[in-house]
């Protein structure tokens, strides 16, 4: 279900222009991220889709129909809505929170609760959490419940207003991964608001950069916005290390993976003048054994130097570069989809691939 903004303007009685003549088409089944500094009208634009805010002029079409032609409450029941701090109803259990929209739409109670239980599983929460109250959940869990609640109506459109900005960075990353995984299964039309360009680039199929005063500065794929910012504002907003971040969109398919000497944790390592990669019985990397180290008897994990980040084969080249740069041996460990070490790459090799890339990465 596509969404189209046609000349949409929102002006407040005090003269503030929150959104200024926004023209934008959001494609069906994609994640579109509205990103920009505070005061750029990104949240206002989002809230006009489900009529939480009414535009001063212009039209918003949802699947070709003007949103103002439908009853506001009915329209909202058909659009998933996730907000910052989740906004869960504190007096209702997690399960009834998730069942909110089905119950509003007149579903039978049992069916609504079954659907809610199903959705808890979908967002990766254990079923027994359903009986708890929001105050008994962590911030990350509350946010997942918020997502489950928005999915309950099974609406094709999902609006997400800075849903992950109030949780800590580690949890946020988990939630982002989860959202991408969900999206690959569900294929919804998601409009996502954030002030964090990294989040925008990570999640968005398309990114709309808005500037203060509610004007659209640039609309394109994340790679496009990073590589070819249209002006200084966008260039400044996407940040100094946009060249590095652009590597997130470059495949590392061509990087040559080299063999590396390995030792097994629990085995007898012997001696060597080279860095050796320690693996466990499953072949997963556990750390590095420095050159000329002497180990009496069996190799244990306490003999090892902690490894750097791991690069999973087939993912963007940014990870390969990071693996090489963060490795104590200057060798980035490459793993397969099961986490088994299959070899190493050097930063030099990765840079060669980047330099030879026809599109260039940093323009």
């Amino acid at each position, binding site marked *: 279900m596509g969404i189209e903004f046609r000349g949409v303007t929102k002006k407040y009685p005090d003269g503030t222009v929150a959104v200024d003549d926004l023209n934008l088409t959001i494609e069906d089944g994609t994640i579109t991220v509205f990103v920009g500094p505070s005061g750029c009208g990104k949240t206002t634009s989002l809230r006009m889709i*489900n009529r*939480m805010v009414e535009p001063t002029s212009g039209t918003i079409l949802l699947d070709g129909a003007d949103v103002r032609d439908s009853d*506001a*409450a*009915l*329209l*909202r*029941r*058909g659009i998933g*809505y996730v*907000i*910052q*701090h*989740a*906004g*869960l*109803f*504190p*007096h*209702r*259990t997690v399960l009834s929170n998730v069942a*909110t*929209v089905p119950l*509003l739409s007149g579903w039978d109670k049992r069916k609504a609760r079954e659907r809610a239980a199903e959705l808890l599983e979908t967002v990766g929460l254990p079923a027994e959490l359903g009986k*708890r*109250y*929001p*105050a*008994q*959940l*962590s911030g990350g869990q509350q946010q997942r419940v*918020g997502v489950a*609640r928005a999915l309950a109506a099974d609406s094709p459109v999902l*609006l997400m207003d800075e849903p992950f900005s109030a949780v800590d960075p580690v949890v946020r990353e988990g939630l982002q991964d989860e959202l991408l995984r969900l999206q690959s299964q569900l294929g919804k039309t998601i409009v996502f608001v954030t002030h964090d360009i990294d989040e925008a680039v990570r999640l968005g199929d398309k990114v709309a950069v808005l500037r203060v005063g509610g004007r659209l500065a640039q609309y394109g794929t994340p790679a496009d916005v990073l590589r070819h910012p249209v002006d200084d504002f966008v260039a400044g907003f996407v940040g100094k290390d946009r060249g590095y971040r652009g590597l997130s969109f470059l495949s590392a398919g061509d990087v040559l993976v080299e063999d590396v000497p390995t030792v097994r944790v629990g085995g007898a390592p012997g001696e060597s003048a080279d860095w050796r990669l320690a693996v466990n019985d499953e072949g997963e990397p556990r750390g590095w054994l420095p050159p000329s180290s002497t180990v009496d008897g069996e190799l244990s994990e306490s003999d090892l130097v902690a490894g750097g980040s791991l690069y999973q084969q087939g993912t963007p080249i940014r990870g390969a570069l990071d693996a090489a740069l963060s490795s104590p041996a200057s060798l980035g460990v490459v793993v397969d989809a099961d986490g088994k070490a299959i070899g190493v790459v050097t930063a030099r090799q990765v840079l060669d691939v980047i330099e030879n890339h026809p599109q260039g990465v940093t323009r």
Partner: protein
Amino acid sequence: MIGEIVDWFTSSANWQGADGVPTRVLQHLGYVLLALVLASVIAVPIGLYVGHTGRGGVLLVGSGNVIRALPTLGLVTFLFLLFTDSDVAAIIGLVVLAIPPILAGTYAGLQAVDRAVVDAAEGMGMRGGQRLWQIEVPIALPLVLGGVRNAVLQLVATAAVAAYVGLGGLGRYLLDGLAILDYGEVAAGAILTALLAIVLDIVLATIQRALVPRGVRLAEAGTKKEVEA
């Protein structure tokens, strides 16, 4: 003094008839409950309306303060001169007295509901009435009932003073005792009034515990990790 109080309480004559303790307690209770119900019928809907729509908040707080500033005894005396009926005058005075705390509690309760929760309710597609009754009122209950408890305490105390215009209830012991300088009776009246206030507050606290949803209590207590452990 203590002896006089003990004598008063142990005298069987004081426990029987129209001027006996049971009758006076019931009378007193009757005034308090009647005034409470009337005040709630007026104050709760106004508080809900203003709290839900956010319209008229300044007016509400202002008029609440004006009513609070009225000297209740003066008001009751004035109403008595107007109606020449002590019951009517006293009840109206008590209702006027009980309105501000209930109004303030209801309004404050609705105002205190987390903006994100209200926003989510609206964004889920709840209509105004659904949002009010399913979301705002349950969450606001602790403060609404807090206002009611406040009102009850003031009613119990002031209903005793209203004996001045000829009202029955526990205030009779205070005024009649004072008239004949029977300080045992005066003290007994004061003790009974205080006891009634305490008992009513305990009853209301119990009702409050039963009515306030568990999730709201948990949120208030901030027991985030407790249950997970």
